[in-house]
């Protein structure tokens, strides 16, 4: 459905040093520098899949989405979206895609969403009765049926985003490019949009490419992630695999039935914390089962839990460093964010 081969984008920008002398020089002689926003990206996304684009700010995610959707022309490389060269922006191509940019609106601010939806229906040549049916269906799914006749400016951020999604999907696109679709929304609105996207994907077999800084969006929707770092693709695979590779240890927390020394505890793993009866160990993931058996046998713990580091912390470190190989340094997770596995 989407195939990119050696896709690159370079922007040329004028640069100037601070100070009056530099400004005068700038008036007569401008120096330009080239910024390579995307470097030799190659990937292929099959029909009907949901893929997440991950990366820190400036990693090149949005630039990539803009190239895939045909908004900007690649500097080099090739891209085919739904069998089309996106930058040609043929009508048949535009009818098959949509691009939603979080906090950027296409609906007319001062008019009710219904007015803008009527324009969209006409532009996409959707029959009036069919448009009405689709609006009813999508607004029901999104929970905004009662909001469509109110001016957009009177709606909450979450309601506006839902109306934007409705407008973007009215022509029932096969390919969705979503750039931060849940940006700034509260938890309920985020969940609502996630379940809507899952439903849309299941119902129409749509291909969805999503960028988000909320890991909950990625974990809820994407089986596959593409991680970008400074314009390059550094990982393409399943989310679980990248987390496993990035966090080679698990945290084992327990209370001892009787005091023991740190030297004894070090036989089971790296001691992260030891105070009286409370112990926190970092155990290599590959040795976890074996180590747990030894702990139960030799230390008789009264309460034991195994914790995975929070995915936000893992991805945060990964995206900062751009390394997908095991980072090495165990992550110190905040206790309240852990997903505890009781044993």
């Amino acid at each position: 459905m989407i195939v990119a081969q050696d896709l690159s984008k370079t922007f040329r920008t004028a640069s100037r040093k601070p100070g009056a002398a530099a400004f005068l020089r700038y008036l007569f002689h401008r120096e330009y520098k080239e910024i390579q926003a995307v470097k030799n990206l190659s990937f292929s996304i099959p029909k009907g899949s949901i893929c997440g684009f991950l990366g820190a700010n400036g990693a090149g995610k949005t630039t990539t989405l803009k190239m895939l959707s045909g908004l900007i022309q690649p500097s080099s490389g090739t891209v085919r979206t739904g069998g089309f060269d996106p930058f040609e922006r043929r009508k048949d191509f535009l009818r098959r895609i949509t691009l939603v940019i979080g906090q950027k609106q296409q609906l007319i601010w001062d008019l009710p969403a219904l007015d803008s939806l009527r324009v969209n229906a006409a532009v996409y040549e959707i029959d009036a009765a069919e448009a009405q049916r689709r609006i009813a269906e999508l607004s029901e799914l999104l929970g905004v049926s009662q909001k469509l006749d109110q001016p957009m400016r009177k709606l909450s951020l979450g309601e506006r985003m839902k109306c934007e999604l409705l407008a973007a999907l009215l022509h029932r696109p096969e390919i969705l490019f979503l750039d931060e679709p849940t940006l700034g929304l509260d938890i309920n609105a985020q969940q609502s949009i996630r379940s809507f996207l899952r439903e849309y994907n299941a119902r129409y077999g749509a291909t969805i490419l999503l960028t988000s800084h909320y890991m909950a969006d990625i974990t809820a929707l994407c089986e596959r992630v593409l991680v970008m770092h400074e314009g390059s693709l550094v990982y393409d695979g399943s989310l679980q695999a990248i987390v496993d590779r990035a966090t080679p240890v698990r945290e084992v927390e327990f209370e001892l039935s009787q005091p023991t020394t740190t030297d004894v505890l070090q036989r089971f793993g790296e001691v992260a914390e030891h105070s009286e009866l409370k112990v926190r160990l970092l155990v290599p993931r590959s040795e976890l089962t074996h180590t747990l058996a030894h702990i139960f046998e030799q230390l008789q713990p009264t309460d034991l839990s195994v914790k995975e580091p929070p995915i936000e912390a893992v991805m945060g470190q990964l995206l900062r460093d751009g390394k997908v190989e095991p980072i090495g340094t165990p992550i110190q997770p905040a206790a309240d964010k852990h997903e505890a596995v009781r044993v």
Partner: protein
Amino acid sequence: MFEAIRLWALKIRVQLAAQIALVATYRAEVVLWALSGTLPIIMMGLWTKAATDAPAGITPVQMVRYFAAVLLVRQMTFVWVIWEFEQDVMQGHLSHFLLRPFSPIWHYIAGHIGERLVRLPVVLALIGLCFALYPSAAFVPSLSDLLLGFAVIAFVLLTRFVMQLASAMMCFYTDRASNIETLQFTAYMFLSGAIAPLEMFPPQVRAFAELTPYPYFVYLPARILMGEPAPVAQGFTVMTLWGLVFLGLQQIGWRRGLRHYSSYGA
């Protein structure tokens, strides 16, 4: 074929309806814009006083009629696409229009026509005010003059829109492309007959002006509405030629500009 035309007409109609609804939301702003364009009423006062000696054979009554017509023409042919396009490029709103299977230009055209329909009653009230001030000059154009006058006004609007849209293509390269319009506006004000009828110009200046499209933007439709002889064929010819030149520039600028477009802010 008929189906394609029907769908195209539907797209225009629906966009126009949305734009009229949008302009109507800010009708007070439209009234203020209309009031801000009352320079012809000021010029009317000045030239009517000066015309007591009938310079260039123009009587005070003709002066009042001329500037009343100028008021209507200028209000009906005002174009602002460059400012709107500049904002859309700078803020990335153009991206949404580019991803629709319908040229973004129609959005701007619908906006101009919609605003004009809401503005017309205010303009007619202003013209009524002119004739209330100078009742001896009050007149109603003949139907043929009115039809021809409005046909020329529509053509002027189209030509000015195309010319400004061509300049707007510079928005792809610079953040302040609208400054180009300031230069063109100076030529427009001086050469169009908005400040003084062309009869008041020195012959050489008038001959030069008639090679440009500007006199046909104001002087020509104003003369037609007054029922005075006017160079209609010459006006259409010159405007068409200039319009085609700027249309060519706009098309080149659009194609090149889109390759340069970075979709900032979106």
